[in-house]
């Protein structure tokens, strides 16, 4: 599974980037394991096809390499919007064909470009040639700044060669290893409510604390066939998509205290002015008139 890492030169909406001559570059590393908690980085390349779909929908094949010590990819993001990276890896062992698809959706956005062009760029993009693809559906009013928090329900669409796939097993892995498995419905959709798994001491709490999740979809097929690598009698498809979510405002914002303080200030000022006026009338014998008549 590809994974964006910290430590580069600049933070942009959509994670850290490197800027060279005004163009944003993204580094992604490949990690392998059972979930974000214990996945390891790769030292060397892994066989497979790397595809990049840019904002305009153009598909490019390219290759990865050693990025800052581990295997990863580095690509330019000249335009605003979402870039999709796919790594498709295929192997046959004991007559079982295994197809792994690692997908990552990367946003490039700088507020400098303004926010008027965002709407048409929001729709998720899919690639029909991918054997098994997970697409994260958008929230109704989602924009480049939208963050997901605990309690939000994220819906994924599972596609088999671009066609919604019912009954696929979809698992969500949180950063600490909690997982939840559901099956896609008739339209190929699976939904998860994000759960809180960030419990720091109060004073260390960060509302922008990013938590990664990985969602995987598994699908098996009995169809037999033959490829250049040999014959197979069954195929197992595994697809992953990574993403991140953040503490929910509900966790750290309090209406009770807010309204308490606001009401206090309102009442305090009101009473203070009232008393001041009363006192002025008494001590200085201000003449004031009764408005009620």
């Amino acid at each position, binding site marked *: 599974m590809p994974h964006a890492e910290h430590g580069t030169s600049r933070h942009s909406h959509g994670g850290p980037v490197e800027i060279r001559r005004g163009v944003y570059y993204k580094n992604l590393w490949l990690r392998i394991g059972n979930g974000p908690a214990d996945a390891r980085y790769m030292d060397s390349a892994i066989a497979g096809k790397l595809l990049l779909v840019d904002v305009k929908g153009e598909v490019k094949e390219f290759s990865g390499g050693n990025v800052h010590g581990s295997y990863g990819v580095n690509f330019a993001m000249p335009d605003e919007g979402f870039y999709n990276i796919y790594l498709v890896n295929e192997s046959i062992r004991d007559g079982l064909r295994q197809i792994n698809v690692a997908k990552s959706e990367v946003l490039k956005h700088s507020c400098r470009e303004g926010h008027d062009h965002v709407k048409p760029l929001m729709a998720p993009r899919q690639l029909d040639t991918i054997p098994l693809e997970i697409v994260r559906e958008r929230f109704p009013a989602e924009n480049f700044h939208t963050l997901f928090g605990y309690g939000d329900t994220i819906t994924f669409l599972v596609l088999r060669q671009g066609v919604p796939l019912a009954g696929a097993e979809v698992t969500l892995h949180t950063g600490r290893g909690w997982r939840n498995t559901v099956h896609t419905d008739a339209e190929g959709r699976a939904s998860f409510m994000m759960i809180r798994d960030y419990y720091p001491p109060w004073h260390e709490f960060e509302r922008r604390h990013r938590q990664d999740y990985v969602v995987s979809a598994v699908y098996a097929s009995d169809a037999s066939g033959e490829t250049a690598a040999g014959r197979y009698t069954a195929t197992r498809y595994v697809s992953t998509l990574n993403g991140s979510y953040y503490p929910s405002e509900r966790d750290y*914002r309090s209406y009770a*205290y*807010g*309204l308490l*303080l*606001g009401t206090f*200030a309102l009442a305090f000022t*009101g009473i203070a*002015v009232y008393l001041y006026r009363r006192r002025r009338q008494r001590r200085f014998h201000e003449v004031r008139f009764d408005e009620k008549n």
Partner: protein
Amino acid sequence: MKRIRDAVNGVDLRRFRFWLQLFFFVLLVYGGYMAVNLGQYLPTFACGFNDEGRGGICYLLPLQHQLAMSWGTLFGWAGLMVLQGFLFFALWFFVLNKGWCGYVCPLGTIQDWITSLRTRLGIRYSRYTEGQFRRLSLIKYLLLALMILIPLGIGGALLPHDMGTPFCDICPGRMIIPMFTGDFSQLTIDFSSKTTMVMTALGMLVTGLFLAGAFFKKRFFCFFCPMSALHYLLSKPALLKLKKDGAKCTRCGDCYRVCDMEIREIADEVKEPRIMQDDCILCLKCVAHCPEQGALKATFAGIPIFESTEQGFIKRMTKGHKDEQHHE
């Protein structure tokens, strides 16, 4: 032409203002639902936190945001971006001058509505003493300075990042304006860090103070508004102007006593024709309440558009005498 001019000068300014303010309020607070987008450089409190309804964004939000960029960026290419934003802001401002405050500002309009509520309840207004006025009048400059220095401090990594828009944090507009589109989420205390906790608590205190203050004092918040201070720094070349012909002034003080901002110079100054002071909100109530022909006038690009006249004054006062109740 003369007939049109007389009609304009005899206008019932209270009613005219009420409807114009309502129009701009709807435009800036609900405009978003009608696909209105006037950009993010508006010289008025079109609150950016009113996500869905906003018809444009108050310039103070992007300004603080931009100034909080790291110094390397800010004093490099991004500096140009800041200047460009400021230029757009200035261009907007030049059209209406401080008329943005008296006619457009949604927070100003809300204060006028609260004032209207008070007069209906038959409760008198408060005024500051002269000494208080002079001192309070300086707070807006202090807020403006802090509003610029704190984000700069953040950019230089001297201050915590979650103080990025310090003025918005304490601006009552952030709590109140989104409520008009059903968004009450700003009425919360943010416990995620000490800074946000303090700032949001301050914000809620200011909101309570604002509501009570605006009830007793006409345009309570405008005395402290850093936008007003920023306006004043740019007000000289603006197109809409308030002018006074001191020779025609009898110093009767009618303009001063109706002034929401308690600006004494409007009545006392007779030498300087450019009479607009830093607290002025260009509501033009002074022009409407001046009984001297041509002593006060509002001009747009040098053309007089609203002038004090004896007839206009008498018409407006007669209406006041006749009104059973105090209406808009």
